[in-house]
Every structure is written in structure tokens, then in C-alpha cells.
């Protein structure tokens, strides 16, 4: 009876402590988001305006979409460096499909998104079947995708002028009267769908399980290689979607438009509390991370901080985020 007394008392304190510990990174990231937001609101009168907030959300869309896909990959203890240049390649392919080949939008846009899935599929094959470490496999894809984007586009932008409806995918207003660009709505929808898939479906469960203990997952009878390929390919779809959103907004597919986005997206994932060692992470955290990054980019720009210094600040934020993650890990190990 004494034993059961201990049992009933313990879980309450454990639950609270472990909930806070488990979500510490998310709480910190969210707190950081609020602090940064308030800071810029006070520091610059131009920050908290409807048009600026909208444009900030706009820039969150691309980082956020890429980061959501990458969250799945990173939870499996993988990494995807090819998302930035992969996005360039997909955007160029969207231009080829829609502008050069005159494929109608309802087919051309899904094709561009699927092309991202193919990039992910190849990454997944290289990682799962050829057993190439994810860092190297996706680094190779990063270079190859950049090269192909330049080759296919002949190093020149493809303009969507002939297809005005394409731009509306990002910049149109689905909800009439509200000047909220479609792209933001797309990101919100994508985030919700991704969160459901990660938390409520077999795909999500295996994503955590593989990242948590790949060997045990295999011993449980799960075909880990197959699911790794599926997860990379699934994440690739987000590359394709991001490429449509960004090229629709720009009205053109620039063969180098995605450069540097991979690091911003990975930073967003990490700031949001997803562990690079796998097994832990959430879509909500990633969205918060993406907001923090675009908030910093935007706010520092408004305050006329030079681009070079913006990067320094971003670097410091990533360090701080990973450092708190380490502290959390050490506490959890106690």
C-alpha cells in the first residue's frame, strides 16, 4: 500500500515537470518571439503597420514551408541541405512546365510540387539504400540541383508574365475584402496538415520512432529504409510547394532564388526545438522558429541594420537556441 501511495503522488509532479521540460524549447522560442516583436514595435514606428506585418508573414511563408518539410527529416536524425537550391530547381521546372510547355496551371503547379518530391525521393534513396550519410547525400543534391537549375534555365530568369493567374497563387486574396495574401493562408493550412500528419498518422509515428531508435524500429518489424525514403520524398513536396509560392510572388523563376534558404530553414527548425539528434520536434515549434527568423530579418532591415550584421544576429540566435536545447538535454538526462 505504501508503494501505491508513492505511485499516485509522483505522477502529478512528474507530469508538470516533464511537460515544461519537454516543451521548454517551445516556450523559450515563443517567449523570444514575443520579446523580439515588442522590441521592434517600440524601436521602430514602421514595424507595427498592417503592410509591414503582412510582408513579414509573406517572407515567413517560404522559410516556413521549407522548414516544415525539413522538420520531418530532422526528426529522423537526418538533414536536408538541398532544400534551397532544390527550390530553385523546382521553380525553374515550374517555369518550364507552365511558361515554356504551356501546361495549364491545375496540372503544371502539382507537377512542380511533385518535382520537389522527386528530389526528396532521390535524397531518400541515397540515404536509405546507398547508405550515404544525410549530410553528404543532400550536399551533393544541393550542388546538383543548383547546377541543373542554371543549365535548364540557361542562367536566365523565366518570367510568368504570360500566365497572370500564376502570381495570384501567392499574392491573390482568397478571402475577399481582407488583404491577406494567399501564400500566408497556404502556410497556415500546410502547417496544420503537417502537424496532423506528424502527430496523428503512421508516417509521423515512424518519423519519431526512426529518429529515436532506428535499430529498435527495425527490430519491431518496420521497414526503416522504405519509410526513410517516404519521409525524404514527403519532405521534398514542401520544396516544390515553396518554389511555387516564391516564384509566384516574384513573378519569375530565378535560377538562384533559393540560395541560402536551406540554412534559414534549418535554423528555423532548430530554434523551434527540433533536435538534430532526432526523435524530438514539432511543427508548432518550427513555425515559431520561422516567424522568429523572418521577424529578425524584417525588423533589423527596418531599423537599417546592414545585411552583414543581420547575419551576425541570426547566427547568435541560432547559438542561443541550440545552447538552451543542450541544457534541456542535460537536465532530462539527470
Amino acid at each position: 500500500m505504501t508503494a501505491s501511495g508513492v505511485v499516485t503522488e509522483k505522477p502529478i509532479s512528474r507530469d508538470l515537470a516533464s511537460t515544461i521540460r519537454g516543451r521548454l524549447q517551445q516556450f523559450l522560442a515563443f517567449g523570444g518571439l514575443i520579446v523580439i516583436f515588442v522590441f521592434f514595435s517600440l524601436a521602430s514606428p514602421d514595424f507595427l503597420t498592417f503592410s509591414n506585418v503582412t510582408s513579414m508573414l509573406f517572407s515567413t511563408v517560404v522559410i516556413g514551408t521549407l522548414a516544415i518539410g525539413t522538420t520531418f527529416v530532422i526528426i529522423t536524425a537526418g538533414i536536408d541541405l538541398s532544400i534551397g537550391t532544390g527550390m530553385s530547381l523546382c521553380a525553374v521546372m515550374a517555369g518550364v512546365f507552365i511558361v515554356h510547355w504551356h501546361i495549364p496551371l491545375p496540372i503544371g503547379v502539382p507537377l512542380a510540387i511533385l518535382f520537389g518530391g522527386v528530389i526528396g525521393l532521390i535524397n531518400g534513396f541515397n540515404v536509405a539504400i546507398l547508405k550515404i550519410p544525410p549530410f553528404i547525400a543532400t550536399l551533393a543534391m544541393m550542388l546538383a540541383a543548383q547546377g541543373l537549375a542554371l543549365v535548364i534555365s540557361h542562367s536566365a530568369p523565366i518570367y510568368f508574365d504570360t500566365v497572370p493567374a500564376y502570381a495570384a497563387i501567392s499574392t491573390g486574396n482568397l478571402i475577399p475584402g481582407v488583404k491577406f495574401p494567399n501564400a500566408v493562408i497556404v502556410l497556415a493550412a500546410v502547417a496544420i496538415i503537417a502537424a496532423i500528419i506528424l502527430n496523428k498518422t503512421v508516417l509521423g509515428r515512424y518519423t519519431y520512432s526512426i529518429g529515436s531508435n532506428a535499430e529498435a524500429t527495425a527490430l519491431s518489424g518496420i521497414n526503416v529504409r522504405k519509410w526513410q525514403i517516404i519521409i525524404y520524398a514527403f519532405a521534398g513536396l514542401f520544396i516544390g510547394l515553396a518554389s511555387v509560392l516564391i516564384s509566384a510572388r516574384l513573378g519569375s523563376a530565378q535560377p538562384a532564388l533559393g540560395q541560402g534558404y536551406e540554412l534559414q530553414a534549418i535554423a528555423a527548425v532548430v530554434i523551434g526545438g527540433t533536435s538534430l539528434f532526432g526523435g524530438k520536434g514539432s511543427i508548432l515549434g518550427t513555425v515559431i522558429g520561422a516567424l522568429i527568423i523572418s521577424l529578425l530579418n524584417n525588423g533589423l532591415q527596418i531599423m537599417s541594420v546592414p545585411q552583414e550584421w543581420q547575419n551576425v544576429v541570426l547566427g547568435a540566435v541560432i547559438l542561443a537556441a541550440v545552447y538552451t536545447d543542450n541544457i534541456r538535454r542535460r537536465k532530462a538526462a539527470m
Partner: protein
Amino acid sequence: MSRLLEATGIVKRYGHVTALHGADFSADAGEVVALIGDNGAGKSTLVKVLSGVVAPDEGTIQIKGNPVTLGSPLGARAFGIETVFQDLSLAPDLGPAENAFVGRELVKPGLLGWFGVLDSSKMRRQAADAFMSMGTNLMTLLDEPVATMSGGQRQSVAICRSIMWASEVLFLDEPTAALGVVQTRNVLDLVRRVAARGVAVVLISHNMQQVLEVADRVEVLRLGRRVAQFRAAGTNIEQLVGAMTGALDGSAA
């Protein structure tokens, strides 16, 4: 009792090292068989062969008299064979209920299930029922990642998971090595109850006293071969140790 599992002449080589030299093993429905042997005798390798993790180089495995190829852990599971490995093989970031169903997730009925939507509440309920019926206190820890649990609790998760699914044979590789006195008692009681359901339970243990207490039969491995079989009743520790070390059967290695 009917012969459930019969392995004959199992050979397993790793490069130049031969782990199993034509080992035999058998287990009947509803009995607890202890598999003992000194370090390096090939116990763990034999368990891996019989649970589909590694393929034998030679030898036959029969289940209910039919020769089978297990092929993989999944193949072994299809025959109702479950294993608790020494390292437990849990996903530390998932909770106990989630771990219990890894690879066997229940999905919602209809279209949602086709999309792979999990029926989490049903899995939780079934896992909680199983944890309860096995006399563990895991029901109160359903939301904790396994990583935050004690060694004994993790062991309970791993054992409960296997028991939930074992319909024919359950392998337990050193199941009480990390446990305290009370938890060890619980596990041994559990072992008897599972056997009473008609499952053949194979217990790998270094604790001779425990072996004699809980097992019906003891099979002794030495240098990759079965060297002795005992009925637990009427056997003493000296006999077991003698067979393990080769002192008793006189088979000099």
C-alpha cells in the same frame, strides 16, 4: 504438451568465429524453458536466430512440426514469436503505449485509416489494460517518454509489449538483470502466468537459483552446442554449473 519450437543443428558463423556449432533447442507449449550457458556459449546468438534477427548458416527450425524460414523479426512475429532483447529495443522519445504498438499501429476505421490516421485512444486503452493486467504501474506513466523512466520501468514496458503480442513463443534475454527484488518477483510471476496461457517462454538468465525456481526445463549451451537438458525439479545448481562449465559431462573443449 506439444512440441512448439524445435531447432536442430543450428550453425552460425561470423567470419572466422563460429558462434553456434550445430546447436539444438526445443520448447513446448505452456512451459518455461531456461536457456543457460557461460558467456560466449552462444545464447544470445541462438535467440537472435530463433527470433529472426540473424539467419542461420545451417540447421532447421520447425514450428509445430513444420520447417520454417523466419527471415526477419517480422517473419518471426508472424509465427507468434516475440523477443525482449537485452538492450530492450525501445524508442526512448515515445511513451510506453506508443512503444507497445510500434510497427503494429492501430488506425481508425474507414477512409481515415486508409490515410494512416492513428487510433491513439484505442491503442492507449489497450496498452493501459495490458499494463494493468500484468501488474505494473505503467498506467500512470502513459504520457512519459520512455527515456525519463527508470531501468525497471523500461524493462516493464519492453516485457509488456512482447507479452501483448506473443501467441506462441516468448524469448526473454536477461529480463531481470536491471531489476530490484520486487520487480524481479513481478517479472517471474508474469513469466509463469504467460506460460499458463499456453505460450512457450524461453528465459535466458545467469541466475541459477531463479532458473530452478521458475523454469520447468533447463537447456544448457556450451561452446555453441546444447550439452545438457534437465527437468528443473530435482536438479540442483551444482549440476547446472557443472554442465555449463563442462566439468560434469566431461566433454573437454
